């Protein structure tokens, strides 16, 4: 039986790990390689790392850092940040990365997704959609550049376009819930999940395993990613890398869809 993926998502800024709230107020939480080593020991399902400097500072991906991370990872590794061209994606995959994520480049030029999928295969092409609710009309809109630029694109329509263009996975991130640790935006997830059949990973809002269980209970096979939950412990947000054990993860599904599977 395929299992939902529970995925730590780490942010890199100035070569250090940070965690943001609503895409701002980055707090230093440690060294990336050290974090990967700990997540290896904890046998995480997958690991996602975003370099949040690369696009906004208009720099190339830091290939040396990517290679260091990829060769340390004993789990599937997805890298995102500053990726704009087919050549960059090929170069990153050669460094031992399974999946390469794009955001602003795909929003500006969706045809790029098809071009990359043809070259490296859909399974390695991930698009990150950073969504934010427009408080005037209640609609969700996609933002880029760390939440600095509103594309005014609709998440549902754009996710469908990405599916048609051969993307392999969508990471749906809620800017409003980022770092807040009060639970995922299930309304946003509902809209996108129903519109596409691609593998979907949701991000933004997890504050406890209960929140992860909620998503798994509702959607079954889905990727559930979290930042704060896996780097902070306790109400004072002390930095402590943590991750559920295999048993705890099994319990997250046990109550819900494993029972459905047996029916």
């Amino acid at each position, binding site marked *: 039986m395929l299992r939902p993926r529970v995925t730590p998502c780490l942010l890199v800024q100035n070569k250090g790990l940070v965690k943001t709230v609503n895409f701002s107020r980055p707090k230093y939480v440690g060294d990336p390689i050290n974090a990967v080593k700990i997540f290896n020991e904890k046998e995480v399902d997958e690991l996602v790392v975003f370099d949040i400097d690369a696009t906004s500072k208009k720099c190339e991906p830091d290939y040396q850092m990517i290679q260091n991370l990829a*060769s340390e990872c004993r789990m599937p590794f997805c890298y995102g940040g500053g990726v704009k061209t087919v050549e960059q994606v090929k170069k990153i995959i050669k460094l031992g990365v399974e999946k390469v994520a794009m955001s602003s480049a795909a929003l500006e030029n969706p045809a790029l997704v098809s071009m990359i999928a043809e070259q490296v295969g859909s399974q390695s092409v991930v698009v990150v959609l950073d969504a934010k609710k427009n408080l005037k009309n209640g609609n969700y809109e996609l933002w880029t550049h760390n939440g600095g630029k509103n594309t005014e694109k609709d998440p549902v329509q754009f996710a469908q376009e990405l599916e048609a263009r051969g993307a392999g996975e969508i990471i749906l991130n809620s800017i409003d819930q980022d770092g807040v640790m009060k639970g995922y935006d299930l309304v946003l997830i509902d809209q996108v999940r129903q519109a596409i059949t691609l593998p979907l990973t949701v991000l933004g809002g997890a504050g406890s395993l209960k929140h992860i269980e909620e998503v798994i209970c509702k959607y079954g096979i889905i990727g559930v990613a979290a930042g704060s939950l896996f780097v902070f412990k306790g109400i004072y947000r002390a930095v402590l890398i943590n991750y559920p054990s295999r048993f705890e993860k099994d319990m997250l599904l046990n109550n819900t869809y494993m029972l459905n599977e047996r029916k």
Partner: protein
Amino acid sequence: MIAIIHYGSGNIQAIGNIYHRLNVPFVIAARPEDLEKATKIILPGVGAFDQAIRELEKSGLREALNKHVLHNKKPLLGICVGMQLLANSSEEGVLKGLGWIDGSVRRFDHARFIQATHLPHMGWNDVEPGKDNPLFNDVGSGARYYFLHSYYFSCCRREDILATTDYGGTFASAVNSENIYGVQFHPEKSHQAGIQLLKKFSNL
């Protein structure tokens, strides 16, 4: 000495790191002569089927593999697309495969896999060993490995199926015929279960 075939991309480094930690000597093989000293060979996966076959031919490795694997009977482990290359053909491409294990590579489709609505098949899934074999002995049925693929190996001969996995239908997640092995999942990205499998391959 294990030779890890290097023909473009794929997770060469991750496989090498695991053997490094296990103290198993290995060589990254990009040229035919790199296979001379090898006692075992790993054929990792790259993006697309045709591209992989082309790279193998261009580098002269295809001919060298024929010599070392088919004639000298060195054990070979194909990983992901590296496993799919062992087949006669693939729906992903138009070129012929190596044809070492009788079968074809097919896309998961709704007619055959009712529940496999999400493609690629991505994530951790159970692998059920089907026949007694040194790669999966002592593994039991609880072992999980990481999968990332949209095509699967359809074996012509039942006895070549080494293990199966369920994704809205059962498919061969590992194959074996004589000295030739293939796994659809990524042992180099499957934590302890994967490390154990790579270790067992090195002990064959």
